[in-house]
């Protein structure tokens, strides 16, 4: 029963999440270029 009332600090991971999102946006540009790159 206690499990249903577990509270955790959702702001604790915000820093990590922002970093991941910035990394995703940068990697998206790289990925897009890679996807449309002609093979050697």
């Amino acid at each position, binding site marked *: 029963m206690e499990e249903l009332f577990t509270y955790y600090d959702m702001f604790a991971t915000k820093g990590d999440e922002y970093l991941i999102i910035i990394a995703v946006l940068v990697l998206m540009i790289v990925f897009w270029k*890679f996807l*449309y790159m002609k093979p050697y």
Partner: protein
Amino acid sequence: MAGEKLETVDIVEEKAEGPSIKSFGNFIDFLKKELKPKGNIATPFNIISLPIMLLGYVFIVLRLAYGLGKPVTNLTQEFPWGLWIGFDVVTGVAFAGGGYVLCFIVYVLRAEKYHPIIRATVLNAFLAYLFYAGAIVLDIGRWWNIYNPMVGNSFGVNAVMFLVAWHFFLYMLAALIEFSPTIAEWLGMRRVRKILGALTLGAVIFGITLSTLHQSGLGALMMMAKSKIHPLWYTNFIPILYFVSSIFAGLSLTIFEGSISHKVFGPQIDEEHHKSYDDIVVGLARICALTMFGYFFLKAILLVHEHAVPYLDSTMGFWYLFEVIGFVLVPCFMFVSGAQQKNLSTIKFAAVLTIVGIILNRLNYTFIAYNWYVPLSERYWPAPMELVITASIILSEVWAFRWMVNRMPVLRKPPAWAIEKEH
């Protein structure tokens, strides 16, 4: 000899122009002719599939008569959802997502490059919803109440299932309207074809709108089971994950089904469409790669957001990584590699891996990562009858698909009178 030639020309002209149906009697005669098998009946596929289907129908009657539970299924109070919900309904509907995605690409984004495969994909989506959503009748305990969400007698508006039921029903109608011009061309009904063609765009937009909600709605079904689903899989964003994964699930099945259809129904497809097929597959592979890239990082962010990273160092953690890396990241890069080098074999293998990954993901939510703490000896495993019934539903859909493709202008060109009406 001259008589034989005239008969061949008549048949070709009839196929080109459509049958001449002027009365109900004509229609019945035409239908009787079309119901006759075309070609060899005793093919290996027919010999293997027909007994499985017939056995499955017998087991379906047993299930309806004797209810859920042994011996028909291994479902219990702890595992109320098994292979039928997990595979037939949830996974099957995800695979049917190719219909709404491709309709969005062709009719909204106006990417005409993908137009040659739209009819086959919409047919696939319609049949998938018809058979797999129809298979819900087998899943619910009191199957005679299946119409309650539609007609009242306790609508059940508080349940996500109410939304899912209505959406499945409405999407089936939308897909039927999208496919109906093909049926009108098959029947030679020119005026009806014109009216139905005018309804296509509206049906497409309606279908896409519905799909966004019921694809995510299937994920929302899991939201109440927070204490039962492993923390690595459970997140408040399950509906978003289900919706995003339905995009590449549907397109992967489109690639897989398209490659089989091109081999089996190759003679129906004209040279121009054969040549454009490789380009179409490469384009679909790029879309899958992009979506899977986004999905992978969505999983990564949610892993951090839900404080679930410590759980990776466990048996279920390795299983989670096996699913996400082996069946999302690896096929993503295979799609990229295949698209770069225009290597269709790589793309097709990536599509198969993706399909397996989606099945794994949906079954994880339904009975593998669900009540994951239950000992192995007490876990749910599909009963033999469940497997046979699932196989018979899939094979029935394949038979229906084959019947329609062999008779209607799905892969072959529409009749000349209909072509100028397209778009």
